């Protein structure tokens, strides 16, 4: 009876893995990682370069064999139903450089032919705003167009789950925005998306839920709003003064949750701006400090990551 229930739960999940481990030489790329992703969800693995995101997603895609752990995709396992699973998934790798000699349509048509069923390549080109580039050689495309082609190829088999590894890395803001709209469209059709990214804006905009990954482990998980709320400091005050204040000075102010310093700037997490900013100004005034800059922003996933690890997402 209890076994049946467990079965039912795992079938209902789009992606489930437990205790994933993978080492490359001395490096533990993935070090005991569990995930449960529901159908129709857009799930993000957020973390800095080298956190193990790519290894994790490639294990889930069945391209890398884990050293330990258990993977179920759509209730199936890789060893047993490989071809059936492949027909139901779409994959975009971190960097694929398609053959430059083929045209956009030829490449998409090739990928379509690899799937037993799927979408009409002409329609897919329209969906990804590539119809004008239909007969252009891939070598002549811009970075954004190539990435849209990669996504089109991943969609050629009309997949139930779309795996996207760093789908917008290196793209200009406009191309990024264009791709985000495509992913949102796919998700709106009730499909599941798993993406990795080190752009917090991307995770905040696209993902229903996010797992923050560092050193091959998940260090926090939840909706972006939950994670940010978990800071108890929804606003960040950024300022510099001469002479500078000390950490003790800042922690004594009302509503200050944490503070950190980069060069001569302070980043102070506060519960309420209307409370903290006047108090800060008064403290500066009393100490005879001159305010050099002052700005505030709402806390982001970046701040969540920093408060969890003490490091920044993009320090490469």
């Amino acid at each position, binding site marked *: 009876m209890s076994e049946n229930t467990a079965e039912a739960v795992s079938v209902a999940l789009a992606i489930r893995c437990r205790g994933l481990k993978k080492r490359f030489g001395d490096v533990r790329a993935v070090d005991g990682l569990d995930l449960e992703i529901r159908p129709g969800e857009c799930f993000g693995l957020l973390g800095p370069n080298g956190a193990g995101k790519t290894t994790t997603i490639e294990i889930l*895609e069945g*391209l890398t064999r884990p050293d330990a752990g258990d993977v179920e995709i759509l209730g199936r396992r890789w060893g047993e139903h490989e071809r059936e699973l492949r027909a139901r998934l779409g994959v975009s*790798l971190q960097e694929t*450089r398609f*053959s430059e000699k*083929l045209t956009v349509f*030829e490449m998409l048509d090739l990928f379509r032919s690899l799937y037993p069923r*799927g979408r009409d390549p002409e329609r897919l080109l329209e969906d990804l705003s590539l119809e004008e580039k239909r007969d252009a050689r891939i070598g002549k495309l811009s970075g954004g167009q190539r990435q849209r082609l990669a996504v089109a190829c991943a969609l050629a088999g009309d997949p139930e789950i779309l795996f996207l590894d760093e789908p917008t890395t290196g793209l200009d803001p406009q191309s990024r925005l264009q791709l985000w709209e495509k992913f949102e469209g796919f998700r709106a059709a009730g499909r599941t998306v798993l993406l990795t990214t080190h752009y917090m804006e991307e995770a905040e905009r696209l993902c229903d839920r996010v797992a923050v990954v560092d050193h091959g482990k998940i260090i926090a998980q939840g909706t972006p709003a939950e994670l940010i709320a978990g800071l108890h400091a929804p606003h960040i005050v950024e300022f510099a003064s001469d002479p500078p204040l000390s950490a003790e000075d800042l922690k004594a102010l009302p509503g200050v949750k944490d503070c950190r310093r980069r060069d001569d700037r302070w980043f102070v997490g506060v519960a309420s701006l209307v409370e903290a900013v006047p108090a800060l100004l008064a403290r500066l005034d009393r100490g005879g400090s001159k305010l050099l800059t002052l700005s505030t922003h709402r806390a982001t996933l970046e701040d969540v990551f920093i408060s969890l690890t003490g490091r920044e997402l993009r320090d490469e």
Partner: protein
Amino acid sequence: MSKPRPALIALTRARVLEFIREPEAVFWVFAFPIIMALVLGFAFRDKGPDKVPVGIAGGGSEGLLAGKPLRSDALKTIEFATLEEGLQALRTGKIALLVENRDPLVYHFDPTRPDARLARLEVDDAIQRAAGRRDPVPVKDVEMHEKGSRYIDFLLPGILGLNLMGTGIWGIGFGIVNARLKKTLKLMTATPMRKSDFLLGQILSRLFFLLLEIAVILAFGVLAFGVPIRGSLVLLLAMALLGSLSFAGLGLLVAARAKTLEAASGLMNLVMVPMWLLSGVFFSADRFPNAAQPLIRALPLTALNDALRAVMLEGKGVAAIAVPAVILAAWGVTSFAVALKIFRWQ
């Protein structure tokens, strides 16, 4: 929407398109063998043997040659004013032999040079005949100029074999290593594609060019040099097909694990350069010592060249090419099987 192509056809088609849009590749497959045949064909064309240059020095009236020029079609004589000038010309290879005109005549030459020994025979023969020598045994020369016995006739099947090897190994090897480097190979393994379809597609795309390649090289040989095709054209094509499949297998094997283009091209050279030299492309493999013959005969290019020559030049039938055919098939099947086993998809 239109029904999608079967994966194998689509993969083959994509590879063919990629190839014909690569101008360098087209050059190496079609233009290079023709240029090579053209250059070598002219270098070794039938124009009669070159005259061997010999020098005559010193003497004047007291030498035995005084007043009697050397009469020989095979010789070109150059007079030197002093012995030292003549010896200098001999040392620098401008002449093959120097006759020092005195009594007795002195021949200066390097006996390790074949043309010098030929010159020694020709010069002495001309001088002795001019002096009235009569040969005790009567002989008569008959000269052969039949097509099929010239160097170009020997060379053309060799170039065909060489080209089938080159395009098979390079064409397949580079295609695969490139796809691996660009990660399209990895991306394709994430689709439901059958891995064997991918490898077969590579081989089929080669066969697509095979017919063109053979047609171009043979047509060139027949039209430009009148090279004969004495045996069955069908048999010739069948051997070329078998050879091409065999080299495609080798190409797959060479590319099975290589992670960089440099590694792959090193391996390809390791496989191909010995065969360029040993397998009787430019000169007969019979020239190598007997001890090495079993090894040389077992090389796929030797087998292919032997078979192509047997059919083209000697008009032989199936029985004569059975052994080379078995050798080629064995290479092809073994390398394909090993390649499939050790292939690295990522």
